[in-house]
Structure formats: C-alpha cells, structure tokens
C-alpha cells in the first residue's frame, strides 16, 4: 500500500516533536538541597506586576530542563527546554502577575540528567509587588569608553515588554555627543530634555510634539550647563555648570578619573528664556554640583566640596550634601544648610535623588570625587528626610552601584551597576518599601537571557518615566540642523 505524502509529513512532524520535547518529570524525582543556578539571578526578588517576562537560563549541566511557575491558586506556566534557556510566554506571564499582586510566585526547576532521570531543585519564591513600576526607562547606550565616542543612543525601553526605540541616535546628528537626558516628575508631565554636544550642539527641550533647541551657554558663563534637574513646576531647570577633566589611570583597576576643576549652579527660566546664577552665599569658595529639587519645589539639594586650587590631590576632594530654600517667585535661594557630611567619614556624595513622595533621598557614596561610575567602591545610601539619618542599602554589590532614579510611586529604584563584569553598567531594579528598605535587586529583563553575556556596550543614566517621548529621531535631526534659541543671561 502506498502511503501518501501527507502521511509522511505528519510522521516527520510527530518525530520532530517527540525528539525536541524533553518530557516532563514524572513521580520518581531526586531532590537537590539547593536552588538551581540561573542567569540572570531572579531568585528571591520582588518584582512589579507589570514587568516584562523575566526570561533566564538554567546554568546547570543537564540534558533537559523543566520549569513550572505557580501561584497560590495552583495556576501554572510550564516550560520545557533542552538547553536551559527559559522563554516565558508573555501573555501567560502578564496574566499570572496581574492575578498575584501582593502575593508570591513559586518557581520549580527540574533537571534531567544524561541517564534520563529527573531531579528537582529547591523552589524559588519571588514576590509580586502590588505597586507597578513606571512603564518606561530612558537611558543612554554607549561603549563604556574613555575619551572617544562613535555610537551613542538615547533610547526608551518599555519595562512591560521588550520593545525599545531610539529617541535619538548620534549617527543622525553628525555623531555629536548626546547626554544628560532628564524628565520632570518621572515623566508624569511632558517635560523632557537632553544635551547635544558638537557641531549641532544645544539643549533640546521636549514639548509634547516637538523639540526646541536652546543654546544655554551665554558669554557670561565660564562653563556650559551640564547636569540638569527640573523644578517640579516645570518652569525652571537647575543645572550645574562644570569644568570637567578626565584622566586615565596607568595602573589601578580604575580606568578613568573624572574630576571637576570648578562648578557652580545655574538656573534656567524656561518661559523667560533666562539663565542666571543660583546665588548661594559664599559659593565662590565651593564647587557646587548635582542639583536636585524636593518634590514640593521648596528646596534645592546639591553636592558641595571646597574649591580646588591649580594643583590638588584628586583623591582628597570630597562632596557633602547641602540644601537651600528656593523661592520660585523671586528665583532666589537662602543660605546653604548641611544635610549630610560625607567628608567627615572620608567619603564623597553624588547624585542626590529624592523619592517623589518626599520621604527619602538616595545618594551614591564613594571614596572621593564626583564621578562614581568608575569607582568600584561606589554604593547607594538612603537618607530618611524626616530624620536625616543615612543607611547603607541592601541592594548594593561589591562593584560600582551608582546613578539611580525613582519610580513615580516611590516604590522602585533603578540604578546602574557594574556587578556583572566590573566594566559594563547594567540596570538593576529594586523594590523600596515605606521604611526605605530595599529588596534584592534584579537586572532589567531581556528577551534573550544570554544577552548580557555577549553585549559589550554600557547602559547609562537610567531614568524611569511614565512619559513616552513621541517625537521621532528624524524630527530631532531637523531641529538640530536649525538655529538654536539663545538664552539670555540675567543677574538675579
């Protein structure tokens, strides 16, 4: 009897299905006394219910793997894999997380050895927080380089999926440098800006449907406007104005040292297009940098160190945390008030960031200087603004932990960490409870769990936001090719 081609096709499909399937573990399972080693490490973490699937790879030696995600209502997601790579179906994942807000999810991992017998590792339990994370992270993508740059992107990634797009790529703008993107109020308003340095240089202000190119540097200013922070009202942006020098270590594990030779704080009034000094008394004796506003806009926090001379020891420059009262009507400030003296502990502070609920302030603490991304000892510390007491955060690692951003609900913190390989910065997210305690941090999920092993570029300056920047790079390029609005200098 001749068999039809359809029969053969079905047979082939069946054989293929059978041979690709690793099968499920049966009843006879050996129990391992530890959890499975997985990469990334998504064990014992607290995750937002709107996070993208947290795909991972089981880095155990086996001929087959089986994973079961389950909740208290015994709903399951089951995945088999031959090579240990676990890709979680997005729809099922979202549904499971939605249904388990404030609850736990168990992860069972099984391994099949060469002889075909199964063993089970200890369960992994992860908490699903009731609070969502902001839907987007905006960041800069570049080589963690020294002096040169070629490819720089400012990208916006959805945390709820793996979708990502470029806000702007420097290949579209004559390879100018792109940096210092900044949202107001975590993107709950439409205020967003970034700097471009080079032939098309300027500061680009987003206004919902377009960008405005402004030249903030006036002839009265010694240095350009650098690190920005939006006033919550959206009417002002505080910048530091820095003279920065970059030097290269010949022998230490640190590769680069970035220091300020001088810095001060300036204010840009958006509506009036005016630049002015933030005249803090005695500020000529100091270097002031990294401005940060309190959520109510009444206080301006900043980092301050004594001004350096022409010759100085770079590793003895240390910044403390100060704040001043700010009056939006007059644009004037009061006297500087010391908030935290890091220098008295022979430490230095950078990147003060206040939670939107005004409760906590997180800083990067390191041994000296003001550019901690190259400092292995840099760690995040949290200051309770009610008591002004600082604490070391549990989310830290033995490597650089730095540049951080709060989610709009003050429950999540994203920060840059070099804990994976000591060179490239990756984004880690941690849940922060009402008391300021941080949960174990987890790395930003990628569709391919092996992505971070291969990728040699660095993720830089993460900023949570609810705002999706809708202007396409082509429009920005057009703006960039046009003239800049020149800011006016005023004495305040």
């Amino acid at each position, binding site marked *: 009897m001749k068999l039809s081609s359809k029969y053969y096709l079905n047979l082939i499909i069946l054989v293929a299905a059978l041979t690709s399937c690793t099968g499920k573990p049966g009843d006879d399972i050996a129990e391992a006394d530890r959890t499975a080693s997985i990469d990334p490490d998504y064990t014992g973490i607290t995750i937002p219910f709107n996070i993208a699937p947290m795909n991972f790879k089981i880095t155990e030696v086996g001929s087959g793997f089986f994973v079961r995600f389950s909740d208290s209502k015994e709903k399951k997601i089951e995945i088999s894999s031959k090579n240990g790579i676990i890709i979680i179906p997005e729809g099922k994942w979202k549904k499971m997380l939605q249904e388990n807000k404030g609850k736990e999810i168990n992860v069972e991992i099984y391994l099949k050895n060469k002889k075909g017998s199964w063993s089970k590792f200890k369960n992994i339990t992860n908490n699903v927080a009731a609070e969502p994370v902001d839907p987007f992270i905006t960041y800069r993508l570049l*080589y963690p*380089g*020294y*002096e*040169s*740059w*070629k490819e720089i992107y400012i990208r916006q990634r959805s945390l709820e999926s793996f979708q990502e797009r470029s806000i702007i790529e420097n*290949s*579209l703008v004559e390879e100018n440098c792109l940096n210092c993107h900044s949202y107001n109020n975590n993107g709950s308003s439409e205020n967003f800006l970034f700097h471009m340095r080079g032939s098309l240089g300027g500061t680009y202000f987003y206004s919902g449907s377009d960008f405005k190119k402004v030249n903030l540097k006036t002839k009265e200013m010694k240095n350009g406007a650098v690190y920005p922070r939006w006033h919550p009202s959206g009417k002002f942006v505080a910048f530091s104005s820095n003279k920065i020098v970059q*030097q*290269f*270590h*010949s*022998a*230490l*594990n640190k*590769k680069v*040292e970035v220091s300020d030779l001088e810095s001060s704080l300036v204010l840009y009034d958006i509506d009036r297009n005016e630049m002015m000094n933030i005249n803090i008394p005695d500020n000529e004796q100091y270097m002031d940098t990294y401005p940060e506003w309190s959520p109510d806009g009444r206080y301006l926090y900043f980092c301050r160190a004594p001004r350096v001379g022409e010759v100085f020891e770079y590793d003895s420059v240390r910044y403390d945390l100060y704040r001043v009262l700010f009056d939006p009507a007059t644009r004037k400030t009061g006297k500087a008030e010391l908030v935290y003296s890091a220098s008295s502990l022979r430490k230095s502070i950078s990147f003060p960031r206040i939670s939107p609920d005004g409760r906590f302030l997180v800083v990067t603490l390191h041994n000296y200087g003001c550019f901690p991304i190259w400092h292995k000892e840099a760690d995040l510390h949290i200051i309770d603004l009610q008591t002004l007491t600082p604490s070391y955060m549990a989310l830290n690692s033995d490597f650089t932990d730095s540049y951080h951003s709060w989610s709009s609900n003050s429950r999540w913190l994203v920060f840059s960490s070099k804990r*994976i*390989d*000591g*060179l*490239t910065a990756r984004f880690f997210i941690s849940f922060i409870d009402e008391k300021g305690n941080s949960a174990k941090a987890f790395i930003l999920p990628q569709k391919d769990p092996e992505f971070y*092993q*291969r*990728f*040699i570029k660095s993720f830089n300056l993460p900023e949570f936001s609810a705002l999706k920047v809708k202007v*396409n*790079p*082509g429009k920005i*390029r057009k703006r960039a090719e046009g003239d800049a609005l020149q800011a006016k200098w005023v004495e305040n």
Partner: protein
Amino acid sequence: MPCRRNGLRINRQIKIKQIMTKDKTIMRSVISFLPYLIFFTGCFLFYGFFADYVEFYQEKLALFVFSHDYLISNIKQPGSLLLYLGRFLTTFFYYPLAGAFIISLIICLIIFLISKIISYLSGKESIFIPLIFGTLFFILQTNYQYLLFNNLGMLLQLVFFYLTTRYLKGYFPVIIFPLWYWITGGFAWIFVLMYTFFIALKATKKEWIRIISLFVVSFLFIYVLKQFFLFQSFNTLLIFPLSGEDTGSQLTFYLPVIALIALLPFSCKIKIRLPGWLGNHDKIVRSFYPVIPVLLISISSFICFDRVLKEYFYSEKLFYRENYDDLTRYITKHPTTNRLTIFLNNIALSETGRLNDLLFQFPQSPDGQTLFLKWEMYGEVLRRGGYFYYTTGMINEAHRWAYENMVMKGITPEGLKMLVKTEIINGDYKVALKYISILKNTLFYRDEAKEYEKLLYDDNAVESHPELGVKRKERIGHDFFSITDDPYVNIQRVLYFDSLNRKVFEYKLAYLMLIKDYKGIAAGLARLESLGYKKIPVNLEEAAMVCRISDSATLPDLGNLKINPQTEARFNMFLQTFQSYGNSLKTAEPILRQKFGNTFWYWAFYH
C-alpha cells in the same frame, strides 16, 4: 558493394567534419575565454604575490563575526548588507592567495558581464572594452584603502542589469527595486541609470511609464525610510555605503568609471568602424586578443605597485606575528623612513633587548615620534600606538588605546586580541571572556581565542604563559595619570616609582639620545650597573664617548662597566674623518654617513 563502401566513407567524412567542427567550436570557446583567463591569472599573480598588502590591510581593518548580533547590527540600513558581504569575503584575505582569487574573480566577472551586456545590446562580441573596464577596476583595487565592496557593488549591479534585461521582463525590476536598494544601497542607482538608459533607447511611451515608475518607487521608498524608519538624511540614504574614505580617496577616478558603466547601454549602440585592412583580417586581429590583457595587466601592475607599501605592511605582518628578529632583519634589508615602521621596529628592538644597540641603524625622528606615538583619535596612529605601552608594561594604557580604536573604528582582529590580552593580564577574566567570545565566532582567529580561553580564571596558567606571564610580571605597579599628548612624561613617571624598570629605562635613554640631552644621558649611564647591565649597549657607548668630550656633561663613573676599546677606536676614527674634511659638516657628511651613519655620533652631528 561500392555504394556501401562509399556510404561508409561518407559517414566517416561526416563524422570527421563533425569532430572538426566540434573541435573548432571548442577551440573558439577557449580562444574567446583566453583573454579572461589571462586577465584573471595576471590579476591573481599581482594580488597574490606582489600587492598582497592590499589583502593584509583590509583583513586587519575589520573583523567579521559569525553571530546573530553581528548580522543584525549590519543590516540596519540600505547598503549594509553589501558591506556585510564585502566584509565576509574580506575574511578570506587572511590567506593572501585566497584574497587574490576573490579580487581577481570579481574583476573578471565584471569583465565577463560587461562583455555579455555589450554582446546582448549591440549584437556584437566585444572583448576590448570589457578589458579596459576590468583594468580600471584593477587599478582602483590597487589602492589598499579601496575596499572590496566597491567592486562587489559594481558587479552586483551588472548582474542585476543583465538579468533584468535578459530575463526579468515587465515591471518586475520596478517591483523588486526596493529590495535591491536595501541590499546594495547607493550602488543601486548605477543599475537605475543603466536600466533607464536601456529603456529610454526603446523610446516607446509604455517604456517611459516604466522609467517613471522606477524613479517614483525608488524615491518613495527612500522617503518612507527617511520619515518613518531610519530618519537619516536624504543624502546618507541616497549614497551609503559609497564614500570617499572607503575608495581610498579615489572618488575623482571612481565616479567617472561609475558614469561610464552607467552609460553602457548608450555606448553599446556606438558603432565603431574598423579600418578596412583590420576588418579584412579579423582572424589576425582576434589572435591578438590574448595579448591585450597581458599588456593591460602588466602596464597597470607596473604603474600601481607600491614597493614602499608592500614593505611597510610586510613589516607590520611580522610585527603582529611577534617575529621581532625577522622584522629587524627585514627592515635592515629594506630600509625605510616610514615613521610607523620604525616605531614598530623600535618595539621589536625593545622586546629583544637591543633598543640601545641598534637604535641608529634605522632612521629616527628627532622629536621621539619613532619611539612613542602621540595620541591621535582619527588616523592610523590609534591602531598602533598602544603597542609601545604594551611593551613597556603600561598595560592600562595599552588597553585604552585598543579600546578607543574599537570605539572609533569597530572591532579589528589585532585590536580585539590586545583587549583580550590586557584584560587577562589585569585579571579581568569576565570582561576578557566577552572579547574571547567574539573572537571565537570568527573563522581564522577561533583557535587563538580558545587558547586564551584556557587561561581564564587560572592565574597560574597566566603567569606561566610565555607572553602574558612576562607582561603580568612587567606590568607597572604604581598608579599615575597617563599623559598621551606627551608620552615621555609617562616614562618619567614610571621610572619615578620604579627606577629599576629596565625596558622603560631603555626607552628613556633612547629618547634622551634622540634629543641629545647629554646630562640626561650621563645620568642614565651612571645607573647602568645598578640596572643589571653586564655590558654597555652600543649606542650608549657611543653617547658616552661624546659625554667624555662634551662641555655640557661629564662622563660618570661606570662602575665595573667598561667602554669597548673598539668603540673608542671608532670614535677616534670618526673625529679624524671629520677633521680630515676641514671640520666641515657639509663636506664631511657623505663620508660620515657612509661609514658612521648608524652611530650616535652621526646623529649628534647631523640632527
């Protein structure tokens, strides 16, 4: 019976005639292919044995990685697939003969296709014009910076044009053009022009609609890409990957060639009447066809071959292979004034402990630029300057140069290897693994990658490695900020913290000799014994003799080290020779150069 015999004879005669006709056809085919074969052979021999520096340079310029990430990052705009294909083929330039084969094949295919196109459009065979074009592309390719994708892009347009005119009728070319443009980028306009001229010559209304459709579809596609997907400028989308830089700055030559190709449909229609005596002796004319490629290739090769480049790149090849003795021997045999060659040779001398013995054997730069290169982000210096730091144990700085080169120019074989080595030496195994993973995904460097991989996380293995172990031991221990605008400062800083660093010391003394700092030289001489020297290097001996008679420095106590009496005798001879020419620098120069050109004394007198 006679009829039958006659029939057999006739059959035999027919068969013989058929065989002869077949032989003639074969013969004609062979003769018609002979010019291509000869051209190919000439091309192959030239690129395989004479201008193999073209393959060497281009293979070292970029690393082709067999990975999904590399593919994705290389198909993101029109024309990048062509670049990807070009880089893939360039991988095989690792073996110059394979590279010569590829280059020759592409050029000969161009010739073949032009010949076919002319034959199809004009109805007549042509070999001379195609060979001329082949020669033009041959000449273009002799510039080592003229990347392979330029000829490849041209070939693809000719293929596409030939196929569309012969087989792909109707609106198929119009429909498929966006895909073609995506693959070949700016080169696709060559096809557009050729096709437009081809269609225009038919001069019917229907055909004009086709031409207009082609242009409309093309520009619409670019517009959509510009506005909604890629956001690049119109100019970039229009011409990428064509660029002056990647043609070796031969645009003024390359563009007219492109124009001539585009005009082929017109030029095919030009009827050239041969002089009567030539037309009547067609067979004689044909017999000269094989001579044409021989002449064309020979003349072009003679004009375009660059001995200086060949010697430079061969030196660089020896350097990368760490055949330091061979490198020095080669440069001795093929003297050069190329600063980069001398720079690499100085490193070779340093690695073999002969920097201050043979320094003046080779032409040096008075400002020290043959010893260490000043930082330069855009030129060829960035690729090579880090080797000085690698040799002298400034591993962080060597790493930085390799890293910056990667950022600016992309991943290159030697650059990636330097990153791997410096990370392993510094014990950054996790990062080294990343680079090794890239190197493993290449065709010809994966074995090296596997060797490096065995060293990871095994300090003992690293320390016993013949190269990396030594470099780890020699790595400088004290930290300071590197000054790449003035590398000599780095030398001083290293010695400030580690005065016993012999390699760096030798570079210092070499530099002091170049700038004729006799006080510094004298101070250095005083330290030789403490640094473990058993004998004074030759050039330092020569410098010592000058210190002895100099007003600006005094020869210090050399301890147990002695100046070789032969050096003293030679110095006396030098002085006597100079005096015999009336102490005239000018008149004495030729003889002093001839007899003492490789000494510090000549340098001191004439620089």
